[in-house]
């Protein structure tokens, strides 16, 4: 059978950076072709070349299929409604004006297809990032293209949504659509891949079949095996460093009490909408709350005051790197030093950048970095500040397996030095593997706490719990 799209010898430079170096790729009908590679390996660049967003310096692309692409960075208009975003560019029209009735009729069907339960008239800005991602997916599906490319769609999704997406992808494959799928979650690859092309430093270093083992994939992409995926080195807990007591924000979360001791990593697990991010933001002073207290190292923090929180020794790596984490117009170095402007330390800055293996130069604009490397910059900024307590909200989103381990090692180092970490994560193996205790939230409350060695099933059982009392 002829491939839908054949790319041969694709080469692409950005200035002196060789992002792609003679890459071949076939996209076949009825096949899920996974692209795997470290952060900055060139996956997104390849996608953008295929989509015609970037030109290429050498190589050929042949094909006749229509193309729909879900890019790594969300491309929604925050001020428009869900429905308007779904049909952006192709708004149904009547007498030359937008046909709102038609839009209202079609939008729910599309949303249902991806299993998204939101009001089509809601503004996209008011939705969570996972829901926004599902809207992107719905929009791409509506194009009924012959080839669908998905660049890390599951990075911001939880289990349930990911399951749904993989189901939809399997359906499309059975209908003869050619799919390209990028993800850093190796378990997803094993569930759906028909073929795996592995990129390293812009070169294709191997094509594997559906039965490839994780070790094999890792060795090819990282160049060495990874012994321990979650290398948590537990410490004997010291005095409490972060104490959240009866924190309540009406309608959002209620009576949240969490304590994190020196040397500890405490995880917060839960479904999207359980209120985890909201608690983290309130504790850090980004948002206000109705009652309760937050204390760092015994000192109570004033409400709604980020500066005071930072001064007391608290830090927060936010979940949305583009919206809240990064100044995209600034360089890597300027972003890294943002929290520590008052006592700048060039040497430590380079040290952290090196430890995180940020692929990019310190004086390079951060928007030129690959998604995973941008994420590392957000984390690096806070590691540089070295707070007593660091709250990490989905810290390894879009980060490759190798770099994840580096981040975990840095977490270990923090706790070994008597710091404390509160880890909010939708990645169950991560939150279980790296936390000394896991607090599970459901519907804005603490549903329970599990000690080290809990299983995914135990966490999920608490997370889906209905509040009866």
């Amino acid at each position, binding site marked *: 059978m002829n491939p839908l799209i054949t790319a041969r010898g694709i080469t692409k430079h950005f200035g002196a950076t060789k992002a792609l170096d003679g890459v071949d790729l076939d996209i076949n009908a009825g096949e899920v072709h996974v692209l795997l590679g470290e952060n900055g390996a060139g996956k997104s660049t390849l996608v953008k070349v295929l989509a015609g967003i970037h030109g290429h310096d050498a190589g050929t692309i042949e094909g006749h299929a229509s193309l729909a692409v879900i890019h790594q960075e969300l491309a929604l208009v925050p001020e428009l409604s869900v429905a308007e975003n779904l049909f952006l560019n192709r708004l149904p029209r009547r007498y030359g004006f937008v046909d709102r009735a038609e839009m209202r009729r079609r939008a729910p069907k599309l949303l249902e297809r991806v299993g998204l339960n939101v009001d089509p008239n809601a503004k996209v800005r008011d939705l969570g990032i996972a829901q926004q991602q599902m809207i992107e997916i719905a929009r791409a599906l509506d194009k009924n293209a012959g080839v669908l490319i998905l660049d890390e769609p599951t990075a911001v999704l939880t289990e349930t949504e990911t399951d749904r997406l993989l189901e939809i992808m399997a359906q499309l494959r059975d209908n003869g659509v050619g799919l390209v799928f990028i993800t850093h979650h190796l378990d997803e690859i094993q569930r759906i891949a028909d073929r795996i092309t592995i990129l390293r430093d812009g070169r294709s270093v191997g094509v594997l079949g559906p039965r490839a083992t994780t070790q094999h994939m890792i060795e090819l992409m990282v160049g060495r095996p990874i012994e321990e995926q979650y290398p948590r080195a537990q410490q004997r807990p010291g005095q409490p460093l972060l104490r959240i007591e009866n924190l309540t924000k009406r309608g959002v979360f209620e009576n949240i009490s969490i304590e994190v001791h020196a040397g500890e990593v405490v995880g917060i697990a839960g479904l999207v909408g359980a209120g985890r991010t909201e608690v983290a933001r309130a504790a850090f002073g980004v948002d206000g709350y109705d009652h309760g207290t937050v204390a760092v190292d015994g000192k109570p923090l004033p409400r709604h005051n980020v500066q005071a929180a930072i001064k007391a020794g608290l830090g927060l790596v936010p979940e949305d790197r583009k*919206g809240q984490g990064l100044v995209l117009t600034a360089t890597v170095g300027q972003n890294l030093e943002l929290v520590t402007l008052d006592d700048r330390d060039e040497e430590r800055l380079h040290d952290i950048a090196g430890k995180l293996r940020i692929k990019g*130069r310190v004086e390079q604009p951060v928007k030129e970095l690959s998604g995973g490397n941008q994420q590392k910059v957000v984390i690096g900024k806070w590691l540089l500040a070295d707070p007593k307590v660091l709250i990490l909200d989905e810290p390894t989103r879009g980060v490759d397996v190798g770099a994840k381990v580096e981040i975990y090692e840095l977490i270990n180092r923090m706790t070994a030095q008597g710091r404390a970490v509160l880890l909010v994560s939708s990645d169950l193996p991560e939150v279980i593997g790296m936390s000394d205790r896991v607090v599970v939230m459901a519907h804005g409350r603490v549903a329970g706490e599990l000690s080290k060695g809990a299983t995914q099933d135990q966490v999920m059982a608490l997370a889906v719990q209905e509040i009866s009392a």
Partner: protein
Amino acid sequence: MTTISIRKYSPKKYLAENGALAGLVILALVIAIMQPAFLNAQNLLNVGVQAAVIAIMAFGMTFVVVAGGIDLSVGSIAALAAMVGALTAGPIGLVVGALCGLVNGALISYGKLPPFIATLAMLSVARGLTLVFSEGQPHETDAMVTFLGSNLAPMVPLPLLLMLAFFGITGLILTRTNLGRRMYAIGGNEEAAKLSGIDVRRQKLWIYALSGLFAAAAGLVLAGRLGSAGPQAAAGYELDAIAAVVIGGASLSGGVGRATGTLVGALVLAVLRNGLNLLQVPPFWQQVVIGVVIALAALLDSLRRR
């Protein structure tokens, strides 16, 4: 992979990265060819002096634009400061300008007004106060203010030196101070700046105060040159200041802008005005040409960024 590489200096690349500078060079060449008198030393000095007022104002505007805002009140503040300076003493004019800026900053950060609205209101208030204080009459400036507009020595006009001094100060603030670093962060992503512990509201207070102070300085230099402060002085200068900043490559959506760019932007406007006069283009047409050049400069810059 995190290595610091030293970028090699190449004039060609430098020009390519600075669309405005390339534009300035081309513009000067064209005018010089059509009217060689342009290159006359005295004329070039005049261009510098003409650029000075707008440039000083535009440097203050650069802070605001880099931080993602806009300041429409700088022309009025310049006039008010000059008038107060003429009626009392120069330094008091500077203080008044900074205070007007502080009020702008307070309205924007604590009153949560959009910068456009807050500074539009100040544009009217400051101009009104100028008229009230002056009773509609121009007032002579004292020796100190007049000195600002004079020549230090033959061929050494003080306004030109002041422009260079403000240029240096602006560059230092933008690149070497925490306030400058924070301007870029706030303009690039206010939310991220906030979450990094930057007191965005307090910073904005200082940023608008600086703009007010620079506008006041520009107003005093203008009055010094003319020997008097007029009630309608510097009317519409805010638009030239904004144009200079934007021609210089700053982005009105914030986070981008440099002192060198703004200096070049101000020079482009001054060279153009001077050249059009030398070429005896009628004043009505001059306006048309200036508008076209502003659009071209911005276009050049946006093409370069693609």
